[in-house]
């Protein structure tokens, strides 16, 4: 008999996928093993991404629920680590929750089914550590309104031809009592401020 701890993430997910519909203990054990490897990563990420701890917990629960219902991770197909795929699921769940709030409560099975595997896997390089620190400090020095608008734009507008959805623009406009052209101006102004911040603090 093999030990589940010796299996790779990909092997565990494959085992869970194969055993899931049979309802075997082995399948559930495989899921428990993969969960034990990544729950703290996902919990930390959700708490970092959402400043509201209840919102973060809800995203954490929904993300794992999505993984349990659609364990489609395949190392060869996705060409990425399990943790990266998991973060992509969390991002899609968060976008779906935004949509549910705007359009009414779509059943979660349907919502997570929309794009559970779709996220960009560009192998873009990350900046030098010093720049990452400066950008993070600069962002945190922005007023909350500017910060939220910047982050929302950047989460949705990935730079690969995807844009901020109209319903999200409307939600931001309503929240900050402003117009769509102003939102973009605020984002551009914040971006210029951050660039200047990084360049002047180097």
């Amino acid at each position: 008999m093999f030990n589940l701890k010796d299996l790779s993430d990909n092997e565990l997910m494959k085992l869970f996928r194969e055993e899931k519909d049979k309802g075997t203990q082995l399948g559930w054990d495989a899921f428990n093993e993969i969960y034990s490897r990544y729950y703290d990563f996902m919990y930390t990420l959700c708490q970092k991404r959402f400043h509201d701890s209840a919102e973060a917990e809800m995203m954490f629960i929904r993300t794992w629920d999505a993984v349990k219902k659609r364990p489609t991770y395949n190392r060869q197909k996705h060409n990425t680590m399990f943790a990266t795929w998991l973060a992509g699921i969390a991002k899609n769940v968060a976008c779906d929750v935004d949509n549910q709030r705007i359009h009414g409560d779509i059943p979660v099975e349907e919502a997570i089914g929309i794009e559970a595997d779709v996220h960009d896997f560009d192998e873009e390089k990350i900046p030098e550590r010093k720049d990452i620190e400066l950008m993070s400090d600069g962002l945190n020095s922005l007023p909350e309104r500017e910060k939220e608008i910047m982050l929302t734009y950047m989460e949705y507008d990935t730079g690969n031809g995807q844009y901020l959805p109209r319903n999200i623009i409307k939600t931001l406009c309503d929240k900050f009592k402003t117009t769509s052209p102003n939102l973009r101006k605020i984002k551009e102004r914040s971006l210029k401020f951050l660039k200047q911040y990084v360049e002047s603090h180097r």
Partner: protein
Amino acid sequence: MKEFNDLTAFEAELRAALKSTGQLFPTTDKEVEYFMAHAPKVEVPEKYRTTDFLLQEDLIPLEKVQSKTIDIAHTEQEWAMAARNGKEIPQYILERMHEDKENASKK
């Protein structure tokens, strides 16, 4: 250090930086690895250390999610400290960040 030729180039770098620090969701292995190596760990409540909650509970309806605001200033300072290998942020940097924030509010 890398120069930012224009705003578009800077935006791409900024996006990668924010994904690496978890302020946006990371989407590449490098960003996830950076996050795992540098993010200050958050204590996971006992109820989420096993998968029992996935068996026992239905999903919480969105309207019942109670807001509990996290102390942002505190968590951000922890993050900034972690990025500096646990060293305290010098007072002059804290003051400069505070000034920058005030100046940005005035604009």
